C-alpha cells in the first residue's frame, strides 16, 4: 500500500539522519522524502512516501512518533489532501519536428518548457505521480537523457486539524 506520511520535526541538524536511519534500521522502505521549512522556522515538514502493509505502516507511524525530535506524525488520506511532485526531464531531440511534438505534449500536460536546444529540451512538471508517470511514458520514445524528481510534497485539505 502506497502511503503519504507528513511529519513535523524540529528544524535542527541530524534530524533527517534520525528519520532515515529509523527506516533503515527497522527495514522499512522510503519511496520518496522531501524536506522543507514550515511557517515556523523552528519546525520542518518532511513528506515521506512509503510502500508498506497496514501493520508495518502502523509501526512506521508509531516509531516516527516515538522519536523525540518529531512533533507530529500524520498519515495523509490521498482523497483529503493535495500532493504534488516536481519533476524535470531532459528529453533528446533527434529531428527538428521532435521539438514541436514535445512542446505540444508539454502544453497538454501543462508543463513548463525550458532550455530548448537542437539536441535536447527540458520539461518541468508539477503534478501527481500518476500524471508524471503518464508523461514519462509518452516522452520515453524520444529518449529521456536525464531526470530529477523532488519527491512528494503534500498538505491535508481544510483547516489545520490537531492529530
Amino acid at each position, binding site marked *: 500500500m502506497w502511503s503519504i506520511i507528513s511529519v513535523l520535526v*524540529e528544524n535542527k541538524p541530524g534530524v533527517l539522519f534520525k528519520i532515515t536511519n529509523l527506516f533503515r534500521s527497522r527495514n522499512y522502505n522510503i519511496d520518496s522524502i522531501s524536506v522543507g521549512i514550515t511557517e515556523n522556522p523552528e519546525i520542518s515538514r518532511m513528506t515521506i512516501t512509503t510502500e508498506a502493509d497496514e*501493520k508495518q505502516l502502523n*509501526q512506521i507511524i508509531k*516509531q516516527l*512518533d516515538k*522519536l*523525540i525530535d*518529531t*512533533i507530529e506524525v500524520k498519515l495523509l488520506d490521498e482523497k483529503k489532501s493535495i500532493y504534488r511532485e516536481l519533476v524535470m526531464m531532459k528529453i533528446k531531440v533527434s529531428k527538428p519536428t521532435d521539438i514541436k511534438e514535445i512542446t505540444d505534449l508539454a502544453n497538454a500536460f501543462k508543463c513548463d518548457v525550458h532550455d530548448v536546444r537542437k539536441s535536447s529540451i527540458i520539461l518541468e512538471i508539477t503534478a501527481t505521480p500518476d500524471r508524471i508517470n503518464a508523461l514519462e511514458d509518452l516522452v520515453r520514445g524520444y529518449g529521456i537523457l536525464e531526470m530529477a524528481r523532488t519527491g512528494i510534497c503534500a498538505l491535508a485539505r481544510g483547516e489545520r486539524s490537531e492529530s
Partner: protein
Amino acid sequence: MEKISGARALMIALEKEGVDIAFGLPGGANLPIYDELYKSNIRHVLVRHEQSASHMADGYGRVSRRPGVCFATSGPGATNIVTGIATAQADSAPMVAITGQVPSKMIGRDAFQESDIIGITNPIVKYAFQPMSPGEIPEVVKKAFYIASTGRPGPVLIDIPKDVQQNEAEIQFPSEVKIRGYHPWVDPDIKEIERATDMLLAAERPIILAGGGVIISSAFAELQSIAELLMIPVVTTFKGKGSFPENHPLSLGPIGMHGHAEANKMMTEADCVLACGSRFSDRSVGTFEEFERNLKIIHMDVDPAEIGKNQTTHVAVIGDVKTSLRIMVKMLIQKAIKRNGENAWAKKVRETKEYYRENIKIHPHPLAASKVLKKLREVLPAQSIVTTEVGQHQMWASLFFDVIHPGTFFSSTGLGTMGWGFPAAIGAKAARPDVPVLDIAGEGSFNMTENSLAVSVLEDLPVIVFLLNNFTLGMVAQWQRTFYDRRMIGVDLKNCPDYVKVAEAYGAQGIRATTIDEIGKAVQTALKSNVTTVIDIPIDPQEDVFPFVAPGTSLKDMILPS
C-alpha cells in the same frame, strides 16, 4: 554573573540532578571534565575498560531507578561504551553517558581519537546531545536526565567537544525544561482498562504475563493484588523475572526459549493474557503467529510503539503500568470481585506445576545446575540483588533460582551481552551498599570483564561472583551438540585460568567449591567477610539447559530433558 567553563557547568548540572557517583576512564578529550570532577563532590569510580563503566552505570540505574552516569573520552573511549549503551537500550535502563569529543573545529577532519559517536549510537540511544557552546550544557543535562528516566527509560548520550568543556561563559541553570516532541506520560484510558477488566473476567483460562515494565514501574503490589483477587496464575518474561514472588502459589515463572515448563505449558493453554510492560520478544513467545492463536491479548505498556509491534492486540492500555494496574485493582474492588476457591483452570495450573516440578529429570551430576542454584537460594538472603552474565548459567538462573523479593534480579535479557553481569553488579552495589550483591556467572562471560575485579576491590564495592565454571562456552556448545551434529568448534576454554588465583591476584578472595556443601559454606564466607569474592564451581561441561524451545518454533514445541 561569574563566568564558568563548560566542564564546571557540567559538574554543577550533574550535582543538581543528584548525581553522586560516576563510572569512567579519562583521556585526552575529557580531561577538562575530569579536572572539574576532581573539584566536585561526585565520587569517581575508575574502571579498567570503558565498556565496564557503561555496564556499571546500567546496573546502578536499574537498581536505583535513577540514571547511572559514565564517562569516556573520544574515539576508542566512546566506541568502547557502545555495547553498554546498546545493552541499556535493549533493556530500557536509564543511563546518561558523557563522552569527550575532539575540539569542535577539528570535528570532521579525521582528528586523532575522533569518532562520530553521535552517528554510531543513533539507533541505540533514546536521545543524543552534542552541545556546541558551554551555555547549552545545563539545559542539555537537565533534558538528558529527564529523557533517560521518564516514560520508557533508556540511555542518553552527551558528547561534548573539548573546547566546549574548556570555554567560559556566563551560564544559566534552568529549573525545568520542556521538549515539544516528547510526552513520556500518557494517562491510561479508563474505558480501555474497563474493557480489559471485562475481558479478563470473561476469560475461562486467563493468565498474567509480567514483563520488565512491572519492575521498572515498581508495580509489584498492584500486580500481586490483581493475581490474588482474580486467582490468575502469573508467568513472566525473562526480563520480568522477579516482578512476582517466585515462591507464590500463583507463580509459574518465566516463559520462553528456556522458560519454566509449567509456564510455557500454561501460557499455550490460556485463552486470555494480561501482558504488563512486556514487548513480546521472540525469546519469550517463540513464533508470533503460533503464540497469538486463540489468545485474546490485553497489552499494557508505556510505549505506544510496542502495541501491535509483534502481536495482534485486542485491548491496549497505553500508560504507566503501575498506574494502569492500580486503576484495575480499584475497579475490581468496587465491583467487589474476589475469587475464592479453585476453579477448573486454577486446578489445572496447580496440577501442571506439581507435575513438572516432580517429573522433570534432573541432570545426573553431583553439581547439576539445579542443585547448585537451589543451594545458592537457600543461603543467599532474599533481599540480595542478583545479576547474571549471559549464557547457560543465565538460563539456569532463570530456571532454578527463585526470586522472592520483587525487583532484585537483573540480567542482560534483550541484547544478551556477555560480560554484563559483573560490572553491573558493581554498579548495583554502589546503588545499594546495604544489601549483598551477587553475580551468577559463567566463566566465558566473566572472562570478558573480569578486570573489574580491580574496581570492585579497590573501590570497596564488594560483590560475589558465583562462577558456574564448565570450561566451555556452554550455550554455544549446547547448540553445536543439538543443531550441528556435535561438531564442536570455538567453545573449549580448557580450565584456564585458575579463577581462585585470578581473584587473589586482584586482591579479592577466591574460593573453589566442589560440593554442594562447600558451595553453601563459600557463599556464607563471602557474605560474612564482605569482600569481593569469586566462588569457582566446576560443573559438568556436558549439562544442557532444558526445557528448550528451539528458535523458530513455538512454546508448544518445548523440548524436555530425556
